[in-house]
């Protein structure tokens, strides 16, 4: 399909035409930003860089009911099907993160909750033009205009958005939008490509990730783990707000006679994440937990699924209260190798 253009003054029409209730868009909330349904009051903000809370929260919410039941009875009822969604304005790194996590959630057996949401979603990405200081997508296989995991890639051309249609799902959106979208020509694509290249040039941080996956486990007893984890507070900021972190806990919650079994985000940086009932903890201190986090992202996940479970969004660096910097850890790893 041809590339299309959405004039900025038509964004409102576009949202209305496709059905506002379908959209999940980046929004600035109280003190943070996240993807949320478009409603009367909230406004899509496509100028936001990466949202504080990554869009994984749409597909894999922090709290998700697996099934409901009444205490004392045996019937279980899973929540109903989700409706179709359009995720508009997702950054390429976050989209890549989802296609990374897909590998795990569709690993046998398939996770039905995650999968059904993924199937129902059309991903309209927005190419980055102003990467932030701690963005390093280009080091881990991505880029400010990476198309992986996207159905449409939008590029801000100033007075309009260029829609580069990548999949059938994307095509469907364009067809539905009808004449709200206008045809684009080659010059638009050239302009977009230039913007994409310029953006890639603006990325200042990075690491050569080659060799790391194979060699990381060799540093098991290295001193660096103690050193980098000393300041760690053991909080979940890095993992909860990481777009590829996917660990969860399953809990039964009961109110009166109504109960549910739900899953909630969990973090490998928490003490009780691996704590056995006997009191034994295979990862007793922050050193082991930090080591596991880095190893999982840069080695174990690669062994299992062939990709690094880090997309270089820089959230963990930006949000760490004590400046634990994954790039700094990796460069120490490189030195030690």
């Amino acid at each position, binding site marked *: 399909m041809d590339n299309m253009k959405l004039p900025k003054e038509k964004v409102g029409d576009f949202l209305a035409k496709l059905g506002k209730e379908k959209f999940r868009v980046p929004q600035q909330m*109280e*003190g943070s930003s996240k993807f949320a349904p478009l409603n009367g009051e909230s406004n899509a903000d496509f100028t936001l860089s990466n949202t504080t809370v990554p869009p994984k929260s749409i597909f894999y919410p922090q*709290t998700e009911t697996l099934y409901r039941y009444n205490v004392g009875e045996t019937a279980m009822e899973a929540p109903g099907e989700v409706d179709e969604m359009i995720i508009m304005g997702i950054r390429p790194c976050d989209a890549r993160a989802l296609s990374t996590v897909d590998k795990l959630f569709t690993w046998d057996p398939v996770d039905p909750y995650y999968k059904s949401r993924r199937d129902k979603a059309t991903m309209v990405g927005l190419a980055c033009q102003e990467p932030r200081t701690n963005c390093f997508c280009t080091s881990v296989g991505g880029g400010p205009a990476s198309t992986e995991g996207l159905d449409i890639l939008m590029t801000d051309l100033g007075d309009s958005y260029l829609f580069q249609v990548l999949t059938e799902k994307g095509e469907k959106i364009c067809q539905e939008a009808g004449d709200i979208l206008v045809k684009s020509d080659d010059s638009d694509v050239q302009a977009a490509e230039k913007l994409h290249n310029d953006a890639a040039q603006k990325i200042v941080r990075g690491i050569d990730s080659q060799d790391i996956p194979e060699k990381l486990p060799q540093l098991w007893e290295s001193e660096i783990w103690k050193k980098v984890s000393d300041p760690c*507070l053991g909080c*979940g900021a890095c993992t909860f707000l990481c777009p590829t972190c996917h660990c969860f806990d399953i809990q039964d919650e009961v109110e009166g006679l109504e109960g549910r079994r*739900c899953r909630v985000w969990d973090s490998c940086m928490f*003490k009780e994440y691996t704590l056995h009932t006997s009191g034994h903890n295979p990862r007793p201190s922050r050193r082991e937990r930090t080591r596991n986090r880095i190893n999982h992202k840069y080695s174990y996940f690669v062994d299992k699924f062939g990709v690094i479970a880090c997309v270089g969004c820089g959230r963990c660096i930006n949000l760490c*209260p004590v*400046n634990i910097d994954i790039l700094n850890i990796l460069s120490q790893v490189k030195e030690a190798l």
Partner: protein
Amino acid sequence: MADLEKLITVAKETVSRDDVKYLIGWRQGTYGFRVSPHFITEPEEADKLIFSPLCSNNLATYLTLVEKLPVPRGQEADTRKIALMVKGCDSRAVVQQLVEQGIKRESVIILGCPCQGVVDLAKVEEKFPAGLEQVAARWDDGKIVFQFSDGEKAVPREEVLADKCLRCRYPNPVLADTLLWEEVEAGSSSDEYADVSELEAKTPEERWSFWEAQFSSCVRCYSCRNVCPMCYCEDCILDRLNPTWVNRSNNISENTAFHLSRAFHLAGRCIECGECERVCPVNIPIMTLNRKLTKEVREKFAYEPGTDPASKPLQASYRPNDQENFIL
């Protein structure tokens, strides 16, 4: 004035002592205005130590954060001291930990750093967007001077200092084994709890809608809990499952219960270092909640935590004539 040379010399001496396990100070972070806690076991590592308006971290939290791992059979427990650099507010945390017997006096060496206030990173980054370049800073007579590679930029302290520092009444360590340089003048700062009063003046409905929005955005990463030097229970109620005090699901009910429990557990213990609010990734004004209780504690019980090593914890003591006009 902060004397870096003195600081490094003392740190080297301290960390060379046989009875010192390690020393905790600050060093320049990996980019921009960031600063990271610096753990030192060897004297030469002390050269990286800094003390500047960027050193917000309250290092007292590491006294209680360190895991007590089982001692392998045949080995003896390491009882060496931990040396710690503290600002005025940080020292209050140490004092309160001592008051509560969370730590032992003989297990810490306190190196006091009289402080002229640390910056609020958000305020700084609004003025100077953070780049990769590591920027140092220093105090200079009512101004904060940022040292960029292409020159220095001075900003009036009021514009970039953290709110807690603008109303600071304890710039000098309350307790220290060594004071690294002369005390700074306490200045005329007073604390009228304007932020708290502002909220108090509203109706309950308005207050709830304010907090409802705040608590809803919480992701329960527990940074606020973990960074807090006073949150050091080995078995936190938030982690417990049997009984489950607060469910793990994220919704307004559990989030409110979490925030109220956390705030209440700090009643009469919060030393107002503001770390919880600083570390919150979704910028919940946690101190506005904590300060309500500090205000009440000060007004109703004339108690200020972390100021007197000889005092008793507020909630572990009472006076028969404590006011009780709310009781039916």
